[in-house]
């Protein structure tokens, strides 16, 4: 199976985005070919490319990379189900920047026990806390804290670990404003949606290639209409999800309606991301239910991604609440 297979899309990258995507894809390809269970090399490569600091502040306080560029990197690495804690690090970078602070060492973020959002009382669970991360940013009342983390433990998502605070805590800065926290939530939903797009889209692309090569009844299984329709439907979902991710990223970059667009993206990603992986598993058939084959890693990642920063129903409900509010308040 080639790591270079992609589903066709009409969505264009700018030249800068295409360069970034190529670099990220190269790191993802090496991860897929060689990493196994140890992703420290992936982290070094990501760090070396500056990808772990994309959302930290430049001299005037704006992020080093746009949300669009950041989502591209996340999508590509998720395609390899890379175990380096990139998303955790990007979220911590964003949270620190929004609080006007900077990080001494890379960190992840501390979430509530149900993973639905940032903790507000300094307790909870650090998600995407694999090595080399030893700290998490945590909101506690009006403060933003750096908490030390205990040893990471595995989850059903084989690519990502969680960790609990181990006791050591220091105040980093005052917590971000309510408005900034709103932006953080949108950014977090965007990254999770991009992670689902990458995880699901790449496995699906591989499934399509497999359907062209796997012979049964003397012909490629991809020539059967039942298989074609499975693939056609999954493709429509991949492209719709891509539209949602592109739009949510743009809304953050352009200071447009980022809450709505990110809720749409996360809700749709949580539902269809998992479905697309399930479709791909069906196309691969028996091979996809073996431990050795990576399909279950994609499925596990998608299922946990779906919960982080709000599941499909919770985010849809939050969207409806926004619509209600607009209907009550009238258009802006």
């Amino acid at each position: 199976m080639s790591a270079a297979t992609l589903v066709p899309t009409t969505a264009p990258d700018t030249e800068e985005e295409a360069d970034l995507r190529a670099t990220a894809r190269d790191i993802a390809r090496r991860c897929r070919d060689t990493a196994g269970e140890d992703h420290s090399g992936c982290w070094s490569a990501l760090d070396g490319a500056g990808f772990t600091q994309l959302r930290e502040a430049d001299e005037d306080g704006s992020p080093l990379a746009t949300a669009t560029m950041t989502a591209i990197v996340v999508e590509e690495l998720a395609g390899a189900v890379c175990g380096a804690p990139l998303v955790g690090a990007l979220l911590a970078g964003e949270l620190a920047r929004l609080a006007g602070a900077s990080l001494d060492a890379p960190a992840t973020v501390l979430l509530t026990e149900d993973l639905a959002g940032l903790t507000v009382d300094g307790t909870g669970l650090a998600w995407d806390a694999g090595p080399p991360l030893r700290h998490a940013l945590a909101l506690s009342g009006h403060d933003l804290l750096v908490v030390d983390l205990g040893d990471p433990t595995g989850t059903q998502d084989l690519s990502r670990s969680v960790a609990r605070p181990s006791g050591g805590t220091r105040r980093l800065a005052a917590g971000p404003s309510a408005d900034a926290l709103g932006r953080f939530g949108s950014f977090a939903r965007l990254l999770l949606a991009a992670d689902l797009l990458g995880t699901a889209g790449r496995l699906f692309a591989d499934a399509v290639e497999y359907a062209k090569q796997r012979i049964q009844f003397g012909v490629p299984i991809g020539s059967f209409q039942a298989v074609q329709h499975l693939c056609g439907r999954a493709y429509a979902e991949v492209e719709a999800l891509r539209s949602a991710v592109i739009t949510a990223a743009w809304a953050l970059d352009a200071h447009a309606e980022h809450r709505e667009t990110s809720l749409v993206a996360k809700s749709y990603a949580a539902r269809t991301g998992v479905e697309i992986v399930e479709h791909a598993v069906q196309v691969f058939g028996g091979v996809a239910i073996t431990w050795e084959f990576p399909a279950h890693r994609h499925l596990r990642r998608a299922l946990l991604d779906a919960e982080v920063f709000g599941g499909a129903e919770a985010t849809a409900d939050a969207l409806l609440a926004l619509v209600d509010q607009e209907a009550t308040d009238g258009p802006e």
Partner: protein
Amino acid sequence: MDLSESPELVAFRDGLRKWLRDNVIEQGADEPRGLFLKRWHQVLFAGGWVGLSWPTEYGGRGLSNVYDVALNEEIGALGAPDAPRIGYMGRAFLQWGTQEQRDRYLPRLLSGEDYWCQGFSEPNAGSDLANLSTRAERTGTGYRITGQKVWTSYAEYCDFCILLARTGESGGRHKGVSAFVVPMRSPGIEVRPIVATTGESEFCEMFFDGVEVPEENRLGAEGDGWPIAMMTVAYERGAADVGYLSKFGAALGELRTLLGDRLRTDAAVRRRVADLEVRFRILTTHVRRRLAERDLADTLPGPEMSVDKILMTEVDQALHRAAIDLLGASAVLPAESDAAGEWMRRYLYSRAASIYGGSEQIQLNLLAQRVLGLPR
């Protein structure tokens, strides 16, 4: 991708909103829907809101494609009648038409003075369109057309038809198909409206018995009919190209209003509507991306538009099914002819969404074979 709205587009929306508040018309009690939509098209055109992305030389506004999304959204937000959905039929003239044909037909198509229909499907050429058997035989000065078409929207009110007919050998599949402009008042045409499950008759049968058309009415060269048809249906699959975004937006708003407090007090109702909201936003988001791409790359729509048709159908059917489920007895008890049966009519119409314009299964075939490259 830059999805920002320019100050000009924002001003356009403001102007459109104000204009719509003063100019929306209502369907007359005895006015057939087809004639009402034609009248609305003409009112919209007079206001300057039709043909936004069309060249100015044909009466369009020469604006970018995203203006069509804005038009759809504003009409939908206000619950105004659907945006005109026939503009897509003229697109083929821009690529295949002669200058004379464009000058003659396009301005009146955009203004709504002429109403157009699409003569593609036949009794034995539905999903298998390439099996069409309507013939156009050469005469000294043009062609003589004989055959039968079906599922033609509003044919009884139309002035012109874009008709596919076989000029090559019978059984030639995609080869030997040509496209013609047929004036609907030509001798030898009989139109029979079909009463649909909604009780209304949008779709018609058309019979052509030796209908004479001059050679200048052929669109493109002989044998260009298939690519012309494929390009036309690609546009037909875009929710903004056919005005459906406006329809769904208006219906969803209306449903929310009808549900009122149940939306806040009944968790099951709320969950269902929240799901619809996400699906509708996904369609809007996707359509906007498509049109932004079309503006950016200056490309014509292709087989990827089947994604759009699938998303459009999903919203259409999920929305109207949910409406019937949630409105319950109030939707299904009124007499068939009662105005209160409107949601039931809309629901029944939505069941056609996965059949017309290329069935759901044909869209999936196209994505699998033409986009993903799976073997035929």
